[in-house]
């Protein structure tokens, strides 16, 4: 029996079953698959409830489908079985795959045209809008939860190290000076739980993708992939190699603790073990809940020798895609469009922003939050917005439009982990990342027939 089960486990595609929440009779159902957990899931459900109460024709049914990658896989499997949900939340790195999905999706501009519902892209903040737009400015998916990378620091640890807790290091040389000062005091009673000066969540996203964007360095050719599937990776330029060597050097000196992939290092900062933590601005809610020390949120540090006039950082998070099935009616699409319009109203957008820690995606939502006095009550909560709106968006800072980007990130984690163990240099890690990543991009290009 065991053998047969194993055989089946090997060959059976791990596609999740499709389930639809049962709705009220007579209403048009809008099935909405999402990947939100905790406070973010509560807020997502609240949005659906508020919409359902605001009108009587349609009913949005939010369904939690697991993590971002699971949700994407589930949506694809469902579409292939002609059971796709009306709306699905897809993380930003899945955007390239969804754009290549042709008839499986109905892009926002198509939806607006067919249903006559006004879905004006101009209401969205440019840094957010650009990521989910076609090159001609038409909106492909509806920006939903957007965050960006920021630096968190422990003010108590700064004070204990004799640093000014009100002044965050704004350049990498300053970060190193601060890290050395902190390291010198580790183990003293004033330093408390601090064991390492610096750590970073989402190391590839923060230290390479965002670093390239704010310093206006190309990550890939063809405007980071926005202008064609034949883009080639460019993140092994001298400035990025310098950044990698700097981080490797800091790790060697005991100033930087790697901590693990993706969100694993979050806990290092929250628990007070690392004095400076890089991560997503969406971590704010968790930090408020967990941190037993005074902390502040700051802009990503820059390297003035590379570019003294940094521009905007890029977003992370997810957007909402409208999906198709063969039997889906015009009325259903209209209900979807109305829901998208509803959640973009200033009240809903501001509420979402203030309860989740994601940035407001519309100008009006931002203005409303300012009028509410939210940023006086929560100092620093506007840091991500300011960073996203800084300077003029260039081809290097619009975002990344690369197929299978999640895989490229994993490749970079692997190569970087080898470098951190001293098996190769920073340059070799990035060079290998480019070689292996380009192979992935060519595979993707072939698979979508580009």
């Amino acid at each position, binding site marked *: 029996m065991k053998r047969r089960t*194993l055989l089946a486990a090997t060959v059976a*595609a791990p596609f999740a079953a499709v389930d639809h929440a049962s709705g009220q009779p007579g209403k048009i159902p809008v099935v909405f698959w999402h990947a939100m957990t905790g406070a973010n899931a509560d807020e997502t459900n609240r949005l659906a409830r508020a919409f359902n109460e605001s009108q009587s024709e349609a009913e949005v049914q939010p369904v939690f489908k697991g993590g971002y990658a699971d949700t994407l896989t589930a949506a694809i499997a469902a579409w292939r079985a002609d059971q796709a949900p009306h709306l699905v939340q897809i993380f930003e790195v899945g955007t390239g795959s969804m754009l290549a999905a042709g008839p499986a999706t109905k892009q926002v501009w198509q939806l607006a045209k067919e249903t006559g519902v006004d879905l004006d892209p101009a209401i969205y903040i440019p840094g957010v809008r650009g990521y989910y737009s076609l090159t001609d400015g038409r909106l492909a998916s509806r920006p939903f939860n957007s965050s960006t990378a920021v630096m968190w620091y422990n003010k108590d640890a700064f004070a204990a190290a004799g640093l000014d807790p009100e002044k965050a290091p704004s350049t990498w040389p300053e970060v190193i000076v601060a890290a050395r000062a902190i390291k010198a005091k580790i183990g003293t009673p004033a330093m408390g739980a601090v064991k390492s000066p610096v750590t970073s969540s989402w190391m590839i996203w923060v230290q390479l993708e965002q670093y390239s964007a704010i310093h206006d360095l190309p990550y890939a050719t063809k405007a980071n992939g926005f202008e064609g599937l034949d883009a080639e990776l460019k993140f092994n330029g001298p400035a990025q190699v310098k950044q990698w060597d700097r981080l490797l050097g800091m790790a060697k000196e005991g100033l930087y603790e790697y901590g693990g992939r993706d969100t694993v290092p979050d806990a290092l900062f929250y628990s007070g073990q690392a004095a400076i933590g890089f991560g997503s601005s969406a971590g704010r809610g968790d930090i408020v809940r967990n941190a037993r020390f005074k902390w502040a949120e700051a802009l990503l540090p820059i390297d003035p020798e590379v570019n003294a006039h940094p521009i905007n950082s890029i977003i992370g998070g997810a957007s909402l895609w409208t999906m198709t099935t063969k039997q889906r009616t015009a009325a259903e699409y209209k209900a979807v469009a109305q829901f998208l319009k509803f959640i973009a109203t200033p009240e809903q957008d501001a509420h979402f922003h203030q309860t989740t820690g994601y940035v407001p995606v519309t100008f009006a939502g931002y203005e409303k939050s300012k009028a509410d006095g939210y940023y006086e009550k929560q100092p620093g909560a506007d840091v991500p917005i300011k960073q996203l709106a800084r300077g003029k968006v260039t081809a290097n800072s619009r975002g990344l439009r690369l197929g*299978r980007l999640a895989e490229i990130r994993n490749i970079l984690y692997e190569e970087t*982990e080898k470098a951190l163990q001293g*098996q190769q240099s920073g340059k070799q890690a990035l060079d290998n990342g480019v070689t292996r990543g380009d192979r992935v991009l060519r595979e993707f290009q072939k698979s979508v027939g580009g």
Partner: protein
Amino acid sequence: MERRTIFGQRLLPVILVAPQFLLTLIFFLWPACQAIWSSMTRQDPFGLHSQFAGLDNFVELFTDPLYRASIGRTVFFMAAVSALSMSLALLLAVFADREIRGRTIYRTLLIWPYAIAPAMAAVLWIVLLQPQVGILAAWLSRHGIAWDYHLNDTQAMLMIVLACAWKQVSYNFIFFLAGLQSIPRTVLEAARMDGARGWHRFRTITFPLLAPTSFFLLVVNLVYAAFDTFGTIQALTQGGPGKATETLVVKVYRDGVVNLDIGSSSAQSVVLMIGVIGLTALQFRFLGRRQLT
């Protein structure tokens, strides 16, 4: 002696076999055929463009040094997990087979880990070995051992071998205990009267008589290490650092579910399927069908 039941009609046996046959068809044969077909295509995730690629996916796999390294790593991992879990289980079984007080309690306790879900087992090991919060990790670092499996290939491999072997000890223990109990007491007593003592008796009588059990367990353990360890590895290291703990089944998941490269992932599944068929054939050949059921 073989017993035979003779059915009068043709229909009844067909009806009796049908459910099992249908299940096999729907859940095993059909997906297997799909995997074989997908392994010979190149398609995008949505299945919009699907081209026949022949054996391209297989050629790409076997010319990729990273895939060949993954095969080697998996073989090492399978051997390490099987050796560790079987030797520990045998040791425990030999002791639990003795006339000692409260042995039913020992036996029950030793079976517990088998009932723990892989992800849960992984969490237990994280509590012990996580570099920042792990109890054992803290003890190690106090004794001058820099423990960080996020950044040390050897430590990461050691940890997944430990975690995966630990989970399988119970299963092996049950079989070894049953095997020990089925050894005729008369043979052991005869040996004792001939003057064979402890280790010598174990080596010349017990161990050879346990051979069928051991061989059966070896195959089961190899298959377990190759496939059932996915949950534990995914929860502990996700295949890292680098590719240090990426076994074949972790790679299938990574390429198929995360990277949505259906063609390559299917090709890898087919390679694994051939591996299982090989192992199973080996087991049938050497053990025969009737010895262990």
